[in-house]
């Protein structure tokens, strides 16, 4: 019984939220249908947007930008984190940068990014990158600085060069921490790209949301919100799957 509940729990929770939404919309208890359209209306709008090709297109645009931002942030964040974790010089040089970047509201940089990179994908990818790179760098740095010394020494004694130690000992040893940072970074990339599309764009899910708002078609607005949430959820689930595969060797980490 409890196992059945555990299996169906997530589904029940989603149904409960949808039910509450429907009830609130149907009774007009929370707000009128213009502010909060019923789930059915949003679903119909989504189906229509899917059929006419708008939703697949905007989803594809946002997905492409998110993946580009995340891939760049993963490469840069991991490299910065490894350097900070293993070299005192790199730590001294990068720590203030990462600390400041972590705290900066990235959206404040967006006008500058638009001036630099234009109204196309560049500025959105850059904003997603800025949201994603700092948590990845910070988590990788923390993990890399905690790699047990005997592990590094064993490798050095076996004849591994410093570069080989960094790539083949420190990197895999820091992988659990790196992947925890990557999870936060991935969601950050989705948010950064979406916000960039909201502020200045002619395509993408963020643009769909703002267009729905401006044209007073609130059901389209909610389609966009639901779509970007599901996109982030699906990407996070994929990352968790990859993490489970990559960390097979550490049963307690893979859970």
């Amino acid at each position, binding site marked *: 019984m409890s196992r059945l509940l555990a299996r169906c729990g997530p589904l029940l929770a989603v149904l409960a939220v949808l039910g509450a939404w429907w009830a609130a919309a149907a009774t007009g208890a929370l707000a009128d249908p213009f502010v909060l359209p019923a789930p059915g209306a949003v679903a119909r709008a989504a189906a229509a947007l899917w059929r006419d090709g708008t939703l697949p297109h905007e989803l594809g645009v946002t997905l492409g930008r998110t993946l580009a931002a995340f891939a760049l942030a993963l490469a840069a964040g991991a490299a910065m984190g490894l350097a900070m974790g293993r070299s005192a010089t790199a730590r001294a040089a990068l720590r203030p940068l990462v600390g400041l970047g972590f705290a900066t509201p990235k959206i404040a940089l967006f006008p500058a990014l638009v001036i630099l990179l234009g109204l196309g994908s560049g500025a959105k990818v850059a904003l997603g990158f800025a949201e994603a790179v700092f948590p990845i760098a910070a988590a990788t740095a923390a993990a890399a600085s905690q790699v*047990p010394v*005997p*592990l590094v*020494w*064993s*490798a*050095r*004694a*076996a*004849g*591994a060069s410093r570069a*080989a130690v960094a790539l*083949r*000992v420190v990197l*895999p*040893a820091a*992988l659990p921490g790196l992947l925890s940072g990557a999870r936060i970074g991935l969601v950050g990339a989705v948010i950064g790209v979406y916000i960039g599309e909201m502020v200045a764009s002619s395509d993408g899910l963020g643009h769909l949301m703002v267009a729905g708002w401006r044209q007073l078609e609130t059901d389209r607005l909610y389609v966009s919100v639901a779509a970007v949430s599901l996109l982030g959820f699906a990407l996070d689930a994929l990352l968790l799957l990859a993490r489970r595969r990559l960390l*097979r*060797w*550490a*049963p307690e980490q893979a859970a």
Partner: protein
Amino acid sequence: MTAAGPPGGTRPKLRLAGVAKEYTGRRRGTVRAIGGVDLDVRPGEFVSLVGPSGCGKSTLLYIIGGFVAASGGTVDCDGRPVTAPGPDRGIVFQEFALFPWRTVAGNVAWALARRGVPRAERPAATARLLETVGLAEVARLYPAELSGGMKQRVAIARTLAQDPDVLLMDEPFGALDAQTRALLQEELLAVWERTGKTVVFVTHSVEEALYLSDRVVVLSRRPARVLEVIEPGFARPRDREKVLADPAYPALHARVWELLRAGGAA
């Protein structure tokens, strides 16, 4: 202190001359960990370092390994000064230090690869090394799936894979239960007798040092110096029961303890 040189005229495998180590800490000022150690280890010899807890015997081992720089004196291996870690000096740690993301076979094969063993020859060489430490069956498991004794066997196999002349062992059996420890001591002796490696073995167990070693180097408390070098002299190959029953054993045991107590009195 007199230089603790081996008898006979062969060139030493390792020569420590006036090795000293000082740490400068922010809060406690300068701490002298090692106060000048002279020691020669001849090729194929099994030497143990014993001393009071915290006397710097592990640090001395790390200096021989080239992992930690001495602040005074020199370490020569085969007549060449030690400045960095090298494949001629393998190390085994108390905490095993296996790569948890590699399988048992992967850990051993990794060390073979660093030595330049061609890819095609690695599986057979790995199997041979795992056979040596009695672990042929678990080649495909990950370290997390092994017991402590098995992990340390893998670590020994991985270190043997780099084919070092000198085996540095830092309390390698200190984390194991008494039975496993006794088994691994016997296996280590068998491997040592077969391979002829030079072993420098750090331990806090007087029994272990006397049972395994050609010479037991007793160090003082900080700053560590050589108090005395004891040669147990039991016949090889050694048998634990015969060693324990040897008439000379109690006196040797008592002597080491006496030195540790005198040197370790705070």
